[in-house]
């Protein structure tokens, strides 16, 4: 029989995979992989803030990530620096401030490794509720704004000209990204969140030819990564978070092989 903690880990992983699948597709389409990195770095600041002010971690991470994301959107419009430079600026400064604040908190025991890599096996029932309810909300909003956000992703000017309000939906998407980082930070940790967002979607890109198919395959890839990763961590006693990402990497490699075969068949 499986232990309770393991079942909770599986449920948590499935919840995250369901949400990170579609969001990850948008991240790839909009070339935002480094944006995810920046947000997850800023999440460290969010966590230290939570400990400092003694408030809920997910809430604090969400607020800090949202603020950073909105600062970025503003900077992009007002400065002439390219997007990647701004992302680097924000990522490193928020990480640095986070570490400085941790220094002041030295009296409190602080598991930095846990923060960086997460601990999916330590998930409790409250975490599960947060992931599933928060995740359901994110998916619901994403479904509601899908058409406008997709149009804005394909081409900003077309969307603006034909009345789709791309600025508004870009902002909402940024907030959704902050939200998914907030709910998944405890599970996969800072360093692996973007992996979970990008790798299943990257795998799906290799084997799909339309957007809906890519979203479905990305969710499927995320689910498989979670299951394979968790069971192998049980089997080989490996760290669970990194095992999930490694599983995703293996799936990605398989998608490359399959892609080649398919295109050869077409010839």
């Amino acid at each position, binding site marked *: 029989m499986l232990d309770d903690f393991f079942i909770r880990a599986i449920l948590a992983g499935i919840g995250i995979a369901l949400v990170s699948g579609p969001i990850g597709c948008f991240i790839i389409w*909009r070339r935002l992989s480094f944006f995810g990195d920046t947000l997850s770095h800023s999440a460290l600041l969010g966590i230290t803030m939570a400990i400092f002010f003694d408030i809920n971690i997910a809430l604090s991470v969400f607020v800090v990530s949202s603020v950073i994301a909105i600062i970025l959107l503003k900077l992009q419009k007002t400065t002439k620096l390219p997007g990647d430079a701004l992302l680097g600026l924000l990522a490193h400064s928020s990480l640095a401030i986070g570490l400085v604040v941790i220094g002041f908190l030295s009296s409190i025991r602080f598991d930095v490794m846990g923060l960086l890599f997460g601990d999916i096996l330590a998930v409790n029932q409250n975490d599960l509720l947060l992931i599933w309810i928060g995740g359901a909300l994110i998916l619901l909003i994403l479904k509601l704004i899908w058409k406008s956000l997709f149009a804005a*992703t*394909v*081409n900003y*000017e*077309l*969307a603006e*000209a034909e*009345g789709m309000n791309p600025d508004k939906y870009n902002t909402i998407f940024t907030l959704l990204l902050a939200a998914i980082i907030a709910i998944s930070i405890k599970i996969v940790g800072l360093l692996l969140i973007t992996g979970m967002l990008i790798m299943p979607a990257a795998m799906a890109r290799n084997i799909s*030819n339309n957007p809906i198919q890519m979203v479905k395959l990305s969710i499927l890839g995320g689910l498989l990564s979670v299951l394979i990763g968790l069971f192998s961590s049980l089997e080989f006693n490996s760290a669970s978070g990194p095992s999930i990402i490694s599983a995703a990497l293996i799936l990605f490699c398989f998608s490359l092989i399959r892609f080649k075969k398919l295109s050869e068949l077409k010839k």
Partner: protein
Amino acid sequence: MNREKKILLKVENVSFSKNNKWLVKDVSLEVKQGEIVTLIGPNGSGKSTTAKIALGIHKKIEGKVKKFTNKIGYVPQKISIDWTLPIRVIDFMSLTKEPTSEQINIALNLTGVEHLKNKNLGNLSGGEFQRVLIARAIASKPDLLVLDEPVQGVDFKGEIALYELIKKISEELNCGILLISHDLHVVMSATDFVVCLNGHVCCSGTPQTVAKNNEYQELFGDRASTILSTYEHKHDHTHSPDGTIKRKQ
């Protein structure tokens, strides 16, 4: 049939500057139902900018833009679509609106690219993609079409056919069209109203009056003014199959 033509778009004394340089200054124009208004002018004269102002893409402007419809179709001059996005022609067709599959088929058929329906956008040639762009803009029967160099990269035969299609669309859908074109032949023959831009409105009016305008002749050179006369010349006779000229009564 002498219905009152509804005004669809009204641009009033609009100016737009970027990096302390005026791109357009004090431009006014209006587009009515069933009418083709064409913007002409040399490179950098603010044609595309004017179109983008009219569409609301450039927002920090002086002056007023009034739109009397929300059903707008746009074919931009330059479009960069990221090919990290797997998207088929058929997905692209319902990007901003929800045309029925019949409307999609008709539109693709009109621009001659129905066979590409299930192809990926990334695999199309420049001309094919341009035809898809036009099909997308007309599929859901808009009231106002803004076409910025719509036939660039299309082969010669297709070019003529597409301009004829544009003319036909404006008549059939009774929609207004704001057209940007370099092709003076087309402008002078298929257009109801011409606005000649060079940062500001140089001159405007029917093709006949614009062609006689001095500023227009200065901008486009001597040959430009002969275009219209060749065109009008075509109307006073026809050719029989052996090439002899038949005069009209």
